[in-house]
């Protein structure tokens, strides 16, 4: 009889299904092959004109046909793909009847420029456009689909309807930590005994001019446009910002007891989750690193583990000068001298920063690392930053014995979340 409760007496939470899509491709197989081959999904943007923009590269998902194209619609499509892949692998429930709640990490949704322009055109030529003019042209029902499309709940509504998840679906944002938070919410609900299963999804489809320019104005984006594939340089001395990217990740979480009872294949354990808020600044981390340190320690405590038991860190590793430095400070404080030996790699060197999806995408990659006993590299690592003496698994994937992975997500608004994933219960 396998123990299905952890050392704290809580139900052990396992993963029985995964789905992923990034700029590298759709599905686990394609992504894992390219990720461990050190391929980059970063390209020059072709979706729209980048005239005048400081950054003209991204990890856009351009192999899908979404019409009409909006960031909300693409986010929905990506979420749909990964949910389908994860549920199919898990083989849980019946089609259209997922036996648990939905937790969805999704970017804030708002009316986009093509729609604003369509309303302006409907208002008639030669009118000086202001919001009063737009308002007069927007009623009468001709733009009714825009209401549904630009509700924050619209993506979750579609998923809940398609997959038949239970109860009120939760859409959430904790900025760059959103994907991890979605998983954390699922873990917590299973531990509380509210449900035996949860569908946790993170999705991001926001490569549009205004989103790019907003991040650009905050000086957050890499401007190494000339050679897109080498632009994302986590932990390198010549890193200059993150590369915006699209993608999605999904996990089917189950209580170990329920998974065993139905004979499901267990892909990994969600052993612990930690979070801690930084109140220092809207976009910068506290210089003492305390919130990141506390977040990492909370995750270890939640898993009932010590840092020595972690043998790979899937870094947040955005390649902004600030993040990578703070991540080293946080990890080295908790891991001590081991911080220089433990492999720490950043998937973002290849797939870019999938923002709201990142925590979920990287959780999938962490589980694939456990499954294949192979660590994906940090590519574009040619000029090490001496201030960050991590073993970043430079440029080439590495076979390794990996029993426990820590996956970190740190975001704007002081959002920090860490997950610990293991092969076996701890």
């Amino acid at each position, binding site marked *: 009889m396998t123990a299905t409760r952890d050392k*704290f*007496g809580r139900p052990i939470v396992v993963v029985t299904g995964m789905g992923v899509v990034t700029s590298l491709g759709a599905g686990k197989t394609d992504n894992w092959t390219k990720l461990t081959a050190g391929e980059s999904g970063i390209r020059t943007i072709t979706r*729209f*004109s980048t*005239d*005048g*923009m400081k950054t003209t590269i991204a990890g856009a998902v351009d192999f899908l046909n979404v019409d009409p194209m909006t960031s909300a619609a693409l986010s929905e499509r990506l979420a749909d793909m990964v949910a389908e892949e994860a549920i199919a692998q898990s083989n849980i429930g019946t089609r259209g009847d997922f036996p648990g709640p939905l937790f969805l990490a*999704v970017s*804030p949704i*708002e*009316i986009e420029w093509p729609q604003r*322009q369509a309303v302006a*055109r409907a208002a008639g030529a030669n009118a000086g456009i*202001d*919001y*009063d003019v*737009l*308002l007069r042209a*927007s009623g009468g*029902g001709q*733009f009714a689909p*825009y*209401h549904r499309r630009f509700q*924050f*709940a619209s993506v979750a509504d579609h998923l809940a309807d398609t997959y038949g998840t239970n109860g*009120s*679906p*939760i*859409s*959430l*944002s*904790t*900025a760059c930590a959103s994907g991890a*938070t979605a998983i954390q*919410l699922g873990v*917590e*609900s299973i*531990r*509380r*005994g509210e449900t035996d299963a949860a569908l946790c999804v993170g999705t991001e489809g926001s490569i549009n*001019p*205004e989103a790019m320019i*907003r*991040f650009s*104005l*905050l000086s957050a984006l890499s401007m190494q446009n000339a050679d897109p594939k080498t632009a994302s340089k986590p932990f390198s001395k010549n890193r200059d910002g993150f590369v915006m990217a699209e993608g999605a990740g999904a996990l089917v979480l189950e209580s170990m007891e329920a998974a065993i009872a139905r004979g499901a294949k267990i892909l990994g354990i969600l052993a612990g989750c*930690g979070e*801690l*808020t*930084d*109140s220092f*600044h*809207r976009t910068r981390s506290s210089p003492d690193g305390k*919130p990141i340190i506390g977040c990492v320690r*909370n995750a270890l405590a*939640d898993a009932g583990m010590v840092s020595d038991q972690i043998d790979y860190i899937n870094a947040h590793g955005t390649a902004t000068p600030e993040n990578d430095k703070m991540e080293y400070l946080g990890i080295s404080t908790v891991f001590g001298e081991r911080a220089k030996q433990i492999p720490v790699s950043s998937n973002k060197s290849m797939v870019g920063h999938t923002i709201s999806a990142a925590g979920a995408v990287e959780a999938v990659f962490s589980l694939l690392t456990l499954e294949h006993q192979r660590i994906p590299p940090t590519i574009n690592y040619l000029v090490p930053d001496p201030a960050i003496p991590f073993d970043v698994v430079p440029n080439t994937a590495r076979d390794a014995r990996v029993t426990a992975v820590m996956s970190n997500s740190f975001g*704007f*608004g*002081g*959002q920090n979340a860490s997950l610990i994933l293991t092969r076996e219960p701890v």
Partner: protein
Amino acid sequence: MADTPTTSAAPVEVWITGVGLATSLGDSLDAHWDALNAGRINVDETGYAPYVVHPFAPVSFDTQIPKKGDQRQMEAWQRIGTYAAGLALDSAGIKGDKDVLAKMDMIVAAGGGERDLVVDAGILNAENYGTTPPGILNERLMNDLRPTLFLAQLSNLLAGNIAIVHGVTGSSRTFMGEEAAGCDAARIALARIASGQSDIALIGAAHNGERKDLLLLYEFDNFNLRNKHTPVWARDTDSGFALGSAGAFLVIESRAHAEKRGAKPFARLTSVVADQARRKEPGQITEALSTLWDELGAVTGARAIISGATGAQPATSEEKDFLASHKDVAVRATGTIFGHTLDAQFPLGLGLAALAVSRGELFAPNDASGFEIAMTDKPTQIVVIGTGHWRGEGMALVEAVT
């Protein structure tokens, strides 16, 4: 906090120990109570004509957001929310209590921030509505958007600002998804405390109704109330809502945590339940509400209902059908008084329910249609209902602490 070494077996009793409301009626609990009983409604039928909105009552933001620099980093919705969150912390007696705030969870329900209307209009005019080469859009966005505007629009930055200004740093989660997000924030925070995963949480939301960009979003499907304010129960044929302005935050904590620090409860938060009816057939909202009512547990005492009905159809008519099976229960619609504040409507209902329970009376009806009846008994149970204008149904049971 996330480190949750144990999950307790028996549900922990959860109290509401802090209420912060800043709305179109004012920013103190007394001011709200007096206005509610006087039947006062602050509504603007001309400034956004033909649309009706409920403007935010002027407050001195300095009292809760002392640094002007912080205020400048926020758009109105964030200022309203950060202000109301401060009121809730004051009300709970934990403002500035670093030990409590450092382990306090926060779940905020949020939409997005206001657009810069002048910038948007300027771009639409300059590019002749998207018909000129796209470089113009990029150039104008690059030049005209304030870098900090993005942060003032980001959903999770209301929570971020509350962390910065008030020091709530245990955890920070932002739920999005209109009305349901406000209910789910309370539902998840309650579940975490009741199961021993957390001791204390700040929950709430903020909404600014004086926004033409939001009127635009709702005008697409004709959700805006036009011309004249009416009670939500009288909008059977004149469907729609008037956008409202409100910050509504609550401090909820385990009874043991409250007693240990000597905090007095407004009320007990007994239960929060939610669902999402498919709304493909008539009657599905009514059916969902009936099921939620049963899930709430025993609602048998001197009870009342505080509804967040929007006035939009068919949702409000279906909610009326549900309420018809509880004819003896006094109902109050926050939508009539405050307008519709989307994510904030459910927390607003919770705050008013806690206030009414703690004061031992239900506030006066405000409904010329007669749907709302007087209540003379002291309410010991108040059910808060949230029915989304498009999606989402939720309910909470707020009870007197005996």
